[in-house]
């Protein structure tokens, strides 16, 4: 067959697909055209705004933009392109908050090591996985030492942390701590021991019954009032405790859903083989239950990652908080769209990544024949 023939066939394949899916009836054709016009209008407007008509570091006259007065849109009437200079000028704050800039290498190091710390638990077919897992367990202590400081490193109080650092700290640590806790809670809720069961039920239902913002306020406002003068647990850690408890309750319910989907016969079979409760749970029940629970677990993780932005209400400068602080500075005020679009993009990257990973995991663990 000549190459022309292949082209014709493949072209007709596309043609068929188009006709079948987009232009099959009059109504569909009209809808397709309207949708295309809409996508074109919105897309071209956005691209012009965000890229083609936008200022990055320099304005249309080639001057370095040092405040909003230099933005092309504030000089040329009718110009509307974005002025991304605020992101460049505040890049360090978006990444590290008010962390002393001469110490920022410590945060960069942790950012660089974070993928190495989680790769071992995310993927099982990588070389030297065992060592990656070891590293995963060392990493929290290393990160604490590097970020907070200690012998040999100057101490940087958490009130100086901010931006992506706080968002990732709350998100990653919150999810990491909540996961084991939530497994225990889910098992406890299914336990036959009445006290453990009722404790778990009360805990889960209480936490799920109040919004995260209430927990944050409780941790931030109520806790210090109970404590004696001078004992002030760190603000960020208080928020972390609230976030972890919140996440563990939601994740526990997702895992319980998985546990309930395991047929009773599996447990009975394991028991008849003489396996203990913990053996049954660890080797038979949990591997299957967690697999079923992956989509809801990832769902709660994505939700939590975005919920971390609520901490701005208790005065922590997470990514959103630091963006709002940037907007409060007279140098940059009113560049709302630029800041919020940038923050959305960062959140999108992380949440989309989590969502793709869960799809990958579902496919990989799919063992049934359907």
């Amino acid at each position, binding site marked *: 067959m000549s190459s022309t023939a292949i082209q014709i066939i493949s072209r007709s394949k596309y043609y068929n697909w188009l006709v079948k899916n987009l232009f099959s009836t009059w109504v569909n054709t009209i809808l397709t055209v309207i949708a295309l016009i809409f996508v074109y209008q919105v897309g071209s407007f956005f691209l012009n705004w965000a890229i083609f008509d936008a200022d990055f570091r320099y304005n249309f006259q080639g001057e370095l933009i040092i405040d909003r007065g230099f933005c092309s849109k504030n000089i040329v009437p009718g110009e509307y392109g974005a002025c991304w200079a605020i992101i460049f000028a505040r890049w360090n704050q978006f990444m590290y908050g008010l962390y002393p800039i001469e110490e920022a290498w410590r945060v960069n190091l942790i950012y660089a090591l974070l993928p190495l710390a989680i790769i071992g638990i995310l993927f099982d077919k990588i070389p030297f996985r065992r060592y990656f897992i070891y590293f995963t367990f060392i990493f929290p202590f290393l990160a604490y030492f590097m970020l907070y400081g200690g012998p040999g490193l100057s101490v940087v109080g958490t*009130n100086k942390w901010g931006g992506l650092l706080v968002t990732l700290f709350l998100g990653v640590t919150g999810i990491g701590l909540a996961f084991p806790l939530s497994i225990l809670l889910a098992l406890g809720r299914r336990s036959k021991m009445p006290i453990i069961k009722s404790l778990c039920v009360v805990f889960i239902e209480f936490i799920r019954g109040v919004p995260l913002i209430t927990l944050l306020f409780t941790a931030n406002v109520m806790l*210090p009032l*109970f404590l004696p*003068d001078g004992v002030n647990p760190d603000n960020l850690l208080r928020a972390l405790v609230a976030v972890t408890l919140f996440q563990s309750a939601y994740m526990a319910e997702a895992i319980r859903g998985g546990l309930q989907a395991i047929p009773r016969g599996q447990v009975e079979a394991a028991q008849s083989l003489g396996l203990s409760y913990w053996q049954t749970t660890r080797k038979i029940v949990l591997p299957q239950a967690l697999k079923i629970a992956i989509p809801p677990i990832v769902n709660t993780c994505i939700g939590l990652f975005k919920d971390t932005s609520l901490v701005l209400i208790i005065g922590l400068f997470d990514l959103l*908080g630091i963006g*709002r*602080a940037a907007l*409060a500075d007279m140098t940059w005020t*009113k560049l709302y769209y630029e800041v919020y679009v940038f923050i959305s993009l960062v959140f999108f990257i992380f949440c989309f990544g989590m969502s793709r990973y869960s799809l990958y995991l579902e496919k990989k663990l799919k063992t049934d024949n359907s």
Partner: protein
Amino acid sequence: MTKIKSLFISLVLTLGVSTAIAGSHGSTHDLVKERGKLMCGSNTGLAGFGAPNDAGVWEGIDVDVCRAVAAAVFGDASKVEYVPTTSKVRFTVLQSGEIDMLSRNTTWTLSRDVDLGLEFVGVNYYDGQGFMVNKSLGVSSAMELDGASVCIQVGTTTEMNLADFFKANGMSYESVPVETNSEADAAYTAGRCDVYTTDASGLYASRAGYPDPSAHVVLPEIVSKEPLGPAVRHGDSEWADIVRWSLNAMIIGEELGITSANVDEMKSSKNPEVLRLLGVDAGYGAMLGLSDDWAYNILSQVGNYSESFEKHIGPNTPINIQRGLNALYKDGGILYAPPFR
């Protein structure tokens, strides 16, 4: 109660929460000195009053009060840690001892002063609800606003003040209800109403962000009292005195014409009050438990009130606020500090 407390402590410790246990049940002043830095409750970002700049350094007239106190206590205005607080948590953060003082545009009211267990030590900005209109309306006084449409946040004191003002002057208005202040700003910019009303400082800050600030005018009438000032915890008068007089020193500095530029020359002044303020006549610092050059440190490192005002919110800044009520009593304002004697 002790049991509950110790239970909580052990709970917190076991959670691995880092704690800073104060040695003794000392005064705030001792605690601050021991810690080596002042913990100051600031805004989470309000232009001209308190916000981190591009380099991450806090700036604003509220921030300058914190710096003045640090200068008085340590002789170094930079020994401040800022704790960003929102309007919702600011008072509990102060009550729980997390911060030593609060300086974030907080209105001094009876209930806050008395019921919340706070002590307002003075006023560093006299604010009040004002009106902003487009210049093209040709209005120069709020008395001419009869029949105007007003963007107003529902359920706020601003709304009540507005109703009272129009009623008292026998005028009517058409309200355009909005939820938040930024929504009101947006609605006004979009031309959905003739008048935008909120605290005057907020009006100026909004106006500074408009593409053409000169097209809008903030009317001279101020219809409510909003004295904003620093606050400390109730029950520690020595510390309250230090914060109060740090603020007063800035105001008296302006009265006496002492600036950060001429403070060294002023040390050889003939005016006895200047000599007392700058610590040339010794003894006044000791009364506060400070060194004699405490006010000198404030004026040389932070500057007087006028310098702070002009630098952060004055007519030469984008916020462009006239001194107005915040001028000294002898310049037609109501800014007045008790004598330094």
